[in-house]
């Protein structure tokens, strides 16, 4: 598992996707050089590039509170933590201190609730929910909601949305061509059964 993930990540780094360079490659050689430097730094590390194992566990617990597992994957299974690891080494690096403080804060709250707990991730799901309800409006949790959504719904080349799990949840497909009918109501019209056709 670890090997396949780091293999995939190495591919992303080498293909330039992980840095999220995009337009940088087009016409701005100086900026592109800066982007490559960051990507090389990332490639030198292991499975988690910009976060620790403990932080990864904390993030996994929080993102699974935002989008919990049911018959479809929760956010961590859908790759949201890999996404977070990636962007904390990229365009959201400035967010890292806030997120680290937030994780420490919920670990502290977890130990207040359950003295023996090693941290937030070790608590039962419902106790985690109760803690997050008390910090719902903090910048930390606002950002975690945002990062969970990005990790689930951005292009998989950003490191998350594994097997397009986020898009499957929504019923979204990233195709480059569609044909009408696009939805139920225009299909109904085309079939001559809609209100429009009757009226």
């Amino acid at each position: 598992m670890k090997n396949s993930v780091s293999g995939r990540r190495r591919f992303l780094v080498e293909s330039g996707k992980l840095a999220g360079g995009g337009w940088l490659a087009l016409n701005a050689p100086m900026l592109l050089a800066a982007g490559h430097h960051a990507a090389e730094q990332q490639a030198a590390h292991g499975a988690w590039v910009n976060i620790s194992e403990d932080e990864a566990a904390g993030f996994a617990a929080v993102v699974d509170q935002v989008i919990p597992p049911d018959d479809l994957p929760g956010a961590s299974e859908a790759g949201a933590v890999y996404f977070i690891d990636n962007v904390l080494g990229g365009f959201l690096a400035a967010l890292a201190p806030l997120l680290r403080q937030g994780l420490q804060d919920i670990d502290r709250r977890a130990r207040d609730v359950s003295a023996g707990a090693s941290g937030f991730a070790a608590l039962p799901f419902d106790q985690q929910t109760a803690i997050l309800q008390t910090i719902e409006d903090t910048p930390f949790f606002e950002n975690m909601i945002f990062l969970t959504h990005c990790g689930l719904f951005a292009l998989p080349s950003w490191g998350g949305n594994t097997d397009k799990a986020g898009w499957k949840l929504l019923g979204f497909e990233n195709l480059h061509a569609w044909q009408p009918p696009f939805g139920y109501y225009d299909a109904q019209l085309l079939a001559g059964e809609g209100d429009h056709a009757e009226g």
Partner: protein
Amino acid sequence: MQKDRPLAVFDTRREVDFVIIGSGASGGVLAKQLSTAGFEVVVLEQGPYRRAKDFSHDELGVFIQGEMTSHPLWEDRQTFRHTRQEKAVVHSQGPAPALYARGVGGSSVHFTANYWRMRPLDFKERSLLGEISGTGFADWPLSYEELEPYYTRVDWEIGVSGAPGPFDAPRSKPFPVPPLPVKSSGVLLEKGAKKLGLHAQPAPMAILSKPHNNRPACLHCGFCMGFGCEANAKSSTLAAMIPLAEATGRCEIRPLSTVFKIETNQAGRVSEVAYFDAEGAPQAQKAKAVIVAANGGETPRLLLMSESSRHPDGLANGSGLVGKYLMANGHSAAYAFFDEPLNEHKSVQVTRIIHDFYENDPQRGFYGGGGIDARAFIQASPILFAQNGLPPDAPRWGKAHKDMLRRNFTRRMMLLASTTSLAQESNNITLDPEHKDGAGRPAMRITYRDHDDDLAMMKFMQDRSMELLEAAGANTTWREPVVPETVLAHLLGTCRMGADPASSVVDPYHRSHEVPNLFICDGSSLVTSGRGQPTMTIQALAFRAAEHIAGFARRGEI
């Protein structure tokens, strides 16, 4: 057809016929028209030269990071305030206050491509309705009839899909290609309209429904608003005009060229345009004449930056109106869930519109008019939908949140109303006295608060939108309060045209009243805001201006 390198390369010391600043909706048209007419043209574009192959469906890069619009690496900060009594705040997150795209083709690359013509009344509404005190409400120095042939050129040369609606102004030629296939949102808008006695009509869109002018038809991929078209089916100037300009061998598109000053000589004429090149080195391109087409925000900013002893208040600013009368159009929205999937993420943003409320109606008690369209908006973008697509009282995380995302991504619909903005001197573009951009240029300062009539019109249209959604059979509807605009995607009126040098910046042919070889042609030229979709009119003006400017040049009148 497109080449990897520019076909024409001009030395900066060569005095070319025209430098055009900006390659967007108007600059692209002017470049094509003047180069095909035989003139040498250099186009200075601050953004990069992206082509269809460079565009993607990367919502995180394009929308969240603002790759084309407000990416921090541009280091081109803006400041915003509602009134001059406030201190303008530096924009740091989310869409920029003056929202436009950087790159060859400008905002025509990322726009939604709604192409409404204005109507005869738009050009003479001041005469029809009388003065509106405290505003710069004025007639245009030209009529619909005069502009109509150029609207038709936009239809055919840019490429507009559509079919005439019941309230449309007369047209001299049919649309070149039929409307795009109706989406579920269009069908539902039509259903609601019928129940209420209103009239939904096919949306005129600058996206090809059929192949036209050697460009392909839309593939319905759904990534229009905010994205560049990978198929060249969206009729940006990048797709429709720039290749024709370059093919003449007389037009050089020079990307990553950030203009900081238009230089004038002792005779009071424009002599060269100073800019930073891709490496940040200062350059200056000599030209016989200059056309500023940098958009209604950047154009006045540049003119104000181009002050000199002869032009102490900025270039072409004898009237004092450069930057004033900024109009952005008003917007208000209503949202709904329906029982069955609409799949708004497929195909173009808009397929049906309602123009029953286009005209001013004295019975409303305030000035204004507008249109309503059914559009996907953020529904086409999974991240933005997850962040903002659910009703305000919906759970924002947890199992119930997941269930709502799962059920409603395909079932959500939005109606957007676009409305008039009154010209007010207090709404304007100025140079920020404190903040500078990464190139050392004064930051653009935007001061903007919608007129009370504009806000009333937005609210009126939102009420109608709610009624339409109910009539269409929505199971849930909601809206957000109408508030003054803070993100301006339409930048209009800041160098208005007119016959009188005391009350306008350019004459009816876009020549500045003060500098004979300086022309200004873009959204800044508009005298009134129209009803919310200005690009069609901006480009009709550009086709018309190019014809007159070419005539002046040929006759030695520049």
